[in-house]
């Protein structure tokens, strides 16, 4: 087969690998660092010719279920999300181990250790382990490409969904990748052999559970012989090193002429117990280097093994939190520091800010001016560019937790007697997870004011289509909001007084109101202007 060398992001390498492996549909909600997987498929020539599904989903749960439906029909499907998206799709994800997969099903979870653009650094491998779903963790862009075909094949062979765990430094790092010039054909429509398995009634699930556990043992045997898990022997057995995913690269960076110690390189889970046991038996001490949380280390240590010969993130050899660097790995290996200039004392922080000309700015200015008239107003924020409203000069937000929590937390606060209780949420976040919470507030006519700051896009991740565009007022009315208190205004500096008046009137109204404050994102507006 003919191949070409291309420079691709880890995200793009995986996307192209999936297309070339006969993908029929990708399902996703945008989220850093996973967004570019779906964007690549949306722009790919083969994907367009084949009309592969690549439209954005409302959230990660709907995406996961849509992909599961495609897998049910025998076709290859992929779901992509950032790590916290796993929380949103946890229900279908965990249950998908019980339905199993028919067509190959890959669930991509892109973790963000060091929280470059996230509210936590949860490690998705725990989800895979807990759900009994096998996982792959590429160590470089070429593996990300190769693992798409391998993953679909494995998923179909064992009839299980499969997790692909990426991390920021792979997703958002480019390298030269050798890719096939032609894509394999898509799979034909084909229904599952065992149809009972897809109906998770207690009786069926009780029969399935022991099968899932037996499969887990088979998958462990697969991991022992996987081409992506390797025992690499070394002459010096005073130390044995376990590395997973991209940690392997940081190890090799520090040993350009080869590592003197035996190394187990892990890229497929469940963990290959025999391979790890051999390393433990043959070496005096183990060092575990893994990107993200100490998943492998916790497994090997257990709760009672405080004095075992295992080092890693728990005993301080490596930092307990944050992503790995070649430098932190170097220190853990006890190698001498590389001489480097001292940090400049003049350099100060340059935090991100809302763009000039952004409508969220007008919302916060008006809201701040109105709320200054109240003693103890509380503003419940949400996830998106407007989270930056917490920073100065706005300091306009009291809480930010997860997608959609602005409306529900404002409602809980109002239930506790808080007034004013204001929710600020973006349009895409509203259709992701705000609508259901709004229904709660409507049903109880909660005394809260919901401001949907509508910029007609999913801005934070670079301007993807927003699922509620043109429908927000109708959605609120359809859920049962009082038409007199579903109001719309343009977020513009010249409307400052009008915005203030509207905000104040609705805060004073003793019931639920929704204000859609609208202005197109300045970034997407520029792009649209260029195209026109």
């Amino acid at each position, binding site marked *: 087969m003919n191949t070409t*060398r291309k420079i691709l992001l880890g995200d793009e390498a995986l996307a192209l690998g999936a297309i070339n492996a006969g993908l029929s549909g990708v399902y996703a909600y945008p989220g850093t660092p996973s967004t570019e997987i779906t964007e690549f498929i949306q722009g790919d020539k083969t994907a367009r010719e084949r009309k592969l599904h690549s439209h954005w989903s409302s959230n990660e749960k709907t995406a996961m279920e849509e992909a599961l439906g495609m897998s049910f029909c025998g076709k290859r499907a992929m779901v992509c999300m950032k790590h916290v998206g796993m929380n949103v799709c946890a229900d279908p994800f965990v249950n998908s181990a019980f339905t199993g997969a028919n067509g190959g099903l890959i669930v991509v979870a892109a973790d963000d250790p060091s929280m*470059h*653009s996230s509210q936590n650094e949860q490690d998705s491998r725990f989800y895979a382990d807990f759900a009994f779903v096998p996982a792959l963790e590429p160590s470089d862009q070429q593996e990300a490409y190769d693992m798409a075909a391998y993953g679909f094949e494995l998923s179909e062979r064992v009839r299980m969904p499969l997790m692909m765990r990426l991390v920021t430094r792979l997703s958002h790092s480019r390298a030269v990748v050798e890719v096939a010039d032609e894509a394999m054909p898509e799979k034909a429509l084909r229904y599952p052999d065992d149809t009972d398995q897809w109906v998770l009634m207690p009786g069926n699930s009780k029969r399935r559970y022991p099968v899932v556990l037996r499969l887990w043992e088979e998958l462990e045997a697969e991991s022992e012989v996987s081409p992506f898990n390797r025992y690499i022997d070394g002459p010096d057995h005073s130390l044995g090193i376990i590395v997973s995913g991209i940690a392997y690269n940081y190890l*090799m*960076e520090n040993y350009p002429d080869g590592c003197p110690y035996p190394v187990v390189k892990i890229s497929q889970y469940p963990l290959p117990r025999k391979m790890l046991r051999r390393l433990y038996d043959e070496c005096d001490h183990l060092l575990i280097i893994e990107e993200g949380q100490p998943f492998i280390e916790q497994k090997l240590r257990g709760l009672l093994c405080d004095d075992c010969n295992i080092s890693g993130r728990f005993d301080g050899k490596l930092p307990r939190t944050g992503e790995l660097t070649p430098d932190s790995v170097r220190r853990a290996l006890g190698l001498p520091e590389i*001489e480097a200039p001292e940090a400049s004392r003049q*350099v100060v*922080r340059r935090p991100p800010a809302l*763009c000039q000309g952004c409508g969220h700015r007008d919302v916060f200015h008006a809201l701040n001016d109105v709320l200054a008239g109240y003693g103890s107003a509380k503003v419940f924020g949400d996830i998106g560019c407007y989270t930056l409203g917490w920073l100065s000069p706005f300091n306009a937000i009291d809480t930010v937790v997860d997608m959609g929590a602005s409306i529900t937390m404002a409602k809980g606060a109002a239930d506790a007697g808080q007034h004013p209780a204001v929710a600020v949420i973006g349009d895409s976040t509203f259709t992701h997870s705000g609508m259901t919470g709004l229904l709660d507030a409507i049903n109880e006519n909660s005394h809260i004011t919901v401001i949907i700051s509508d910029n007609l896009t999913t801005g*934070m991740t670079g301007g993807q289509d927003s699922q509620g565009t043109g429908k927000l007022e109708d959605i609120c009315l359809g859920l049962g909001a009082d038409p007199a208190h579903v109001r719309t205004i343009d977020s513009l500096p010249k409307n400052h007084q009008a915005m203030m008046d509207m905000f104040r009137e609705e805060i004073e109204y003793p019931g639920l109101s929704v204000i859609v404050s609208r202005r197109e994102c300045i970034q997407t507006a520029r792009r649209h202007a260029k195209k026109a």
Partner: protein
Amino acid sequence: MKTDIVLAGVGGQGILSIATILGSAALKENLYVKQAEVHGMSQRGGDVQSNLRLSSDPIASDLIPQGGADLIVSLEPMEALRYLPWLKTGGTVVTNTAPFVNIPDYPAHEALMAELDALPRVVAFDMDAAAKEVATVRSSNMVLLGACAPFTGIETEKIEDAIRAIFGRKGQAMVDANLAAFRFGLDKAKNL
């Protein structure tokens, strides 16, 4: 051949185009390339950086170790200094001296210049002014690319070919403007 480059700037200034051009030139040369970049929240006027590694041998880490960079290439003077701990002994700093001031506690310009001037190997001049003079305001990054070109280990002609290939879609005028900015930076670096 092995060149490790830290590219720095402020979100929206265009450091990633520099990485794209050098990366595609390196690919043509059959070199190995790794380039880590930052997306998402950090782009909104915050500091951004990218680690670009070019080598004739396979590259292990996507990130450059501290004390490992041959070059710091920056579109902004304070951002150049932010990455000093990554500079190799004997490494070079190539930076625009025009400040991008979007924070209240931005340091005094003279003090920044003094610290830059004290570095052993530095190419620093006002690339915004240069871009405006020879091409367009938006092409400061191509002036910077020209100014760092002699230190990258990639032949100048190959970088110019990559500029032509990448901007070709946008028309000949765009190619010419970017090449003019690139050559201005190149001459300036050679004569400093």
